[in-house]
């Protein structure tokens, strides 16, 4: 076993695009890092900021929110709501000493299985550079 740091990514994926893309990556037998833990959401717009904070508090090293490309949202404009929320979250996380590069929002369409695999790979590599998250291990009541 190598001693390399293995980051954990919590992924909140939209059921209609990125989650399907992850499915496609699987059925296409694409290999991607096992570091990603997926939580299915109906829309990126339903990702409450507290889910992201909770994930960091529970010790994840990065959060990946996957939504539909602008204009393609299954619920008209949920992905735009997610974008606004993520912009604010970046501000908040920065103030708590969490590198803003630990929270990714990416548009991945249902057909872009390879893009899902690439994104996860990129994010894993980036988190390896950043190292473990500072909030890790801090118990919260």
């Amino acid at each position: 076993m190598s001693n390399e740091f293995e980051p954990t990514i919590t992924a909140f994926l939209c059921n209609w695009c990125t989650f399907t893309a992850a499915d496609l990556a699987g059925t296409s037998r694409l290999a991607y890092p096992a570091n990603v833990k997926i939580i299915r959401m109906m829309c990126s717009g339903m990702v409450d900021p507290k889910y992201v904070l909770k994930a960091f508090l529970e010790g994840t090293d990065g959060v990946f929110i996957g939504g539909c490309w602008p204009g393609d949202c299954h619920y008209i404009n949920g992905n735009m709501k997610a974008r606004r929320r993520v912009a604010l979250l970046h501000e908040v996380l920065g103030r708590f000493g969490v590198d803003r590069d630990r929270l990714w929002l990416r548009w991945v369409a249902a057909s872009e299985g390879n893009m899902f695999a690439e994104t996860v790979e990129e994010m894993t590599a980036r988190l390896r550079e950043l190292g473990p998250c500072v909030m890790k291990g801090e118990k919260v009541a």
Partner: protein
Amino acid sequence: MLELTINGQSVLVQEGKTVLEAAQELNIEIPTLCHNQALEPYGGCRLCVVEVTKRGRKSLATSCTLKASAGLVVETDTERVLRSRRMTLELLLARCPEVPVIRTLARQHGVTTTRFGLENEQCILCGQCVRMCKERMGVSAIGMVNRGAQRVVSPPFEEFSEVCRSCGACATVCPTGCIDIQTFSQHRSEPLPSEWNEGLRARSAIYIPFEQAIPKVPVIDRDACVHLNTGACAICSEGCVADAIDFDQTDEEVEVNVGSIIVATGFDALDPTPMEPYGYGRYPNVMTNLEFERLSNATGPTSGKLLLRDDKDRYKFTRPPQSVAILHCIGSRDVNYHEYCSRTCCMYALKYAHLLKDKCGHETEVYNFYIDMRCFGKGYEEFLKRVQAEGVRMIRGKASLVTDEALDEDEEGKLVVVAEDTLTAQILRVPVEMVVLCTAMEPRSDAESVARTFGISVGGDGFFLEEHPKLEPVSTPTAGVYLAGACQGPKDIPDTVAQAKAAAAEALALSSAGHVTVAPMISSIDPDICIGCQVCVGLCPYTAIEIDARRGVSVVNSALCKGCGSCAGYCPSGAAKVEHFTDKQIFAEIEGLLDCRSDG
């Protein structure tokens, strides 16, 4: 109404009609070369003479200019009339001895020789072209010049006309077919290519799109119609007996309320013009699969005969080819164009090979240049064997070049297909007369905007994405929208029919059930927690949240809610939640996932 007598039959006609028109109503045939119902009467050819009795006096008159009057007695076939017509025809025959329409007319009247000095003219000076250009097109690009024996039709000063729009109306009405617009117009006349016939045939500006068109009514090409562009012409509306032509008609938007939609928008055929090595567009006998399809069709430009295209005139076809090459995978299975297989080409290429052997004779050499033969369907492999048995040459190797540069005598004047035979590892040069390109099936150019309209996704290859490749092959992520045919991916007719029937069944299942099942993931707002801030009302994209004014809380209309969770994601008090995606559940999920990690 006026009553007159023609050949002993009495007929009632409207005032202002001519004797010729009255005779036509009685189906009495009067020969004429200068009459055209779209033009003013002219009386130029003198063939329509009839004998008229008026106040006891008999005289000859041209029926096309003679207005009908009450009590007129007309004879159309007396000896005097026939003698006059024969004389006119004898004179016309002397002027234009080679023109078929004159020869036929003369023969019908028993005139076979002429006593006058022979000339070799084509034009009979009927003036239809001049009148058409002036009266209907409003241009007067051509006119009669000189007098007597020197009289000819010409543009002013015999110079190339600047005002001529090269609309071709003059050539259309010319009874002898002697007008070539290029000899007097400054503008090139380009025939309009028929879309249905893949440009193998010309069409007019008003045309019936194709033989089986529904409704089978003509359409007007706005860009080409002379009337819509200049206000002139409108001959079609005059000729239409039903008075059905309406130039003011515009596109209509029709709103239809439906419960389900089947998207069956089909595919585009790849345009091989940019693939220069294949010479499409440069060599007249390099054609696409669809062009060949029209050529072999009984309603096509050659009535189904497989003929070579004339080198000079693209609308002319000459003789059957003696050798044909069919090139597979043009744009399919090609990293530069489309990596996917178009699925249909192998089989229709075999069909073409069979048709060529069948229609042009067994001695016709047919070569198939393929990468792999994919004859996967029921009866397909058997068809391949049958076509091979008919003597069709199968060459495994994709053609790389089509050229007319000959290296030896055999290749002179032919198209040479260059390919590597990958079974023998040899470069082949095959001289043929016709090349058929089996072009790829492409997604429609507007597929992305259609996908956006219906809320469906487009795959990496550009075709619409089904909900699941195995279990939901006709459904889409949007409930009630189904896919059928090549818009979902290249497929042949049996597969398209199967998918279309499946889509129809899915749509019918919805309507026969009479109710729809919605996913249980919809929002709810806990009235005990809601503080009535109303932010969720503005966030909801489906206007599914209303305010209960009495209780001062927001309420979700569960029939409208689609469960996107916009409200739950924002709600500051935590009152809004999506069923099965509650905070408790998501938190448990996060904890579970991350616990795993620390344990492992």
